[in-house]
């Protein structure tokens, strides 16, 4: 019974912790610009993140190795170091945009000055990571992030044309007004794919398995958590496409940039309760994501250089790991304090994420399929086929990402 409850809470935490500011921005905008026609990318990316999440969790359970342990081992020191630097630039950018997003939400609630709120958010996040044990961090922010289900209720209450929703689940090219909109559609497809398969989610999920002392007997828990948790999280993100398509598009809000715009739909449908749930959901989801990015950066440094790491060791036994996440939070807050637009920042971080995706995922599939390392827990045929397939797709998307960013002027068309 206790194990079932743990599994249930784990799945819900994975669901509530799935959406971050990047997904919010791109899904809402995708819905507002292209209706449901990008839903298939959500479905496609969700299968990909489940495949790699499951492998990363299984590696943690069997070998207790972190992702950057195997990145360095498999792609070599110099390429591994380049991946480490690039991944952490993206982590700092993403963390900064999450902090900015939280400050914007608090500003909507409290009306206090933005820069003061950034300091407040920084201290809140530092205190949360310092004082809460790892499992509590996962559970608190994951479960409270479930306030975001208000977007699922809203997407359904907006009475979508279900035949169009179903049509959007199959690969399609929408009718567009201008030729350049095809590039914009391709840009959103690549960005949505990247937003779902963000590397930090895999770093964090794998490190979480080590933090929670997973053993090979936990592989079933890993399968359910990554499979069901990520799938339900993705359903939550997909509902944002629905809100974009059914609420923002008809209201002519084509560039739903601020998180506040996301709350308009739930507010109109459910009044103050809808507004409060949407803002609270975003607050906890962005806070969880900020923590995940900062800890992921610290995990990756520690794993690459062989430092002792993990919340379970405490600050005295993993001092450099603790300093690393404090520095990442501080750098991210400083970046936000410059006045940079967090939404614009997250757009760049998502596009750059896809560039490092193949370098992160190649070592994962290489280790997960290796019988000498994984023994009887090595990939089966299906995991191998899907792993290599998604690696090829993410490589193609990585090659297309930066040209599309330039051609579409950062997604502005």
């Amino acid at each position: 019974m206790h194990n079932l409850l743990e599994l249930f809470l784990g799945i819900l935490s994975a669901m509530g912790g799935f959406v971050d500011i990047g997904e919010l921005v791109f899904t809402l905008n995708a819905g507002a610009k292209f209706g449901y026609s990008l839903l298939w990318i959500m479905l496609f990316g969700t299968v990909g993140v489940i495949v790699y999440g499951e492998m990363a969790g299984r590696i943690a359970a069997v070998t207790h190795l972190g992702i950057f342990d195997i990145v360095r081992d498999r792609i070599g020191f110099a390429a591994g170091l380049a991946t480490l630097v690039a991944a952490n630039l993206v982590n700092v950018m993403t963390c900064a945009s999450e902090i900015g997003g939280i400050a914007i939400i608090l500003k909507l609630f409290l009306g206090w000055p933005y820069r003061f709120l950034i300091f407040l958010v920084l201290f809140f996040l530092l205190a949360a990571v310092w004082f809460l044990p790892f499992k509590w961090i996962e559970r608190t922010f994951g479960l409270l992030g479930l306030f975001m289900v208000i977007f699922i209720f809203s997407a359904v209450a907006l009475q979508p044309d279900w035949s169009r929703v179903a049509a959007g689940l199959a690969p399609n090219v929408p009718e567009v007004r201008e030729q350049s909109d095809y590039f914009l559609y391709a840009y959103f497809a690549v960005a949505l794919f990247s937003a779902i398969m963000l590397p930090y989610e895999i770093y964090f999920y794998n490190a979480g398995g080590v933090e929670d002392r997973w053993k090979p007997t936990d592989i079933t828990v890993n399968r359910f958590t990554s499979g069901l948790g990520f799938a339900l999280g993705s359903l939550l993100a997909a509902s944002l496409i629905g809100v974009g398509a059914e609420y923002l598009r008809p209201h002519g809000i084509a560039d739903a940039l601020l998180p506040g715009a996301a709350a308009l739909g739930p507010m109109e449908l459910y009044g103050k309760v809808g507004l409060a749930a949407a803002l609270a959901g975003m607050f906890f989801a962005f806070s969880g994501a900020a923590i995940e990015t900062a800890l992921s950066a610290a995990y990756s440094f520690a794993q690459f250089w062989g430092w002792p790491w993990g919340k379970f060791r405490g600050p005295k036994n993993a001092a450099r790991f603790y300093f690393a996440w404090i520095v990442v939070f501080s750098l991210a807050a400083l970046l936000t304090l410059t006045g940079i637009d967090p939404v614009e920042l997250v757009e760049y971080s998502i596009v750059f994420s896809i560039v490092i995706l193949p370098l992160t995922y190649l070592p994962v599939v290489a280790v997960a399929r290796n019988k000498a390392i994984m023994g009887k827990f090595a990939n089966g045929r299906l995991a191998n086929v899907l792993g290599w397939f998604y690696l090829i797709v993410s490589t193609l998307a990585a090659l297309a990402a930066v040209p599309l960013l330039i051609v579409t002027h950062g997604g502005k068309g």
Partner: protein
Amino acid sequence: MAAKDNPDYFDLAGQVLDHMIVDSEDMPCGKVDDIEIEGDLGGPLRVKALHVGPGAWMPRLPALLALIAGKFFRRSTVAVAWEQVEEITPTIKLRSTAAELGLGKADRKAARFMRKVLRS
């Protein structure tokens, strides 16, 4: 018989280089940044030591990056005698503690600083 069929076979580049080192108390204390091998041409080779530290990983970088890294890190290296290796799993387990071998100095320094901060 293929080399891999030998029960004593292991792949130095694949199973040792760049792998995590843990001491006798299971504390991570660095990565194998380089492997020192001794022997004469035509004669048998044997592993002498594992090298850990910037002096060992810097030469593995492209020249320009090595030059830049040299400005930020001292080229210090700790050589761990091969006899210290107790077990090779995905990690390299040693027979002594990190402190006894001179590994993990930066960690102990950071831990002392952390203790000071926590006390004050």
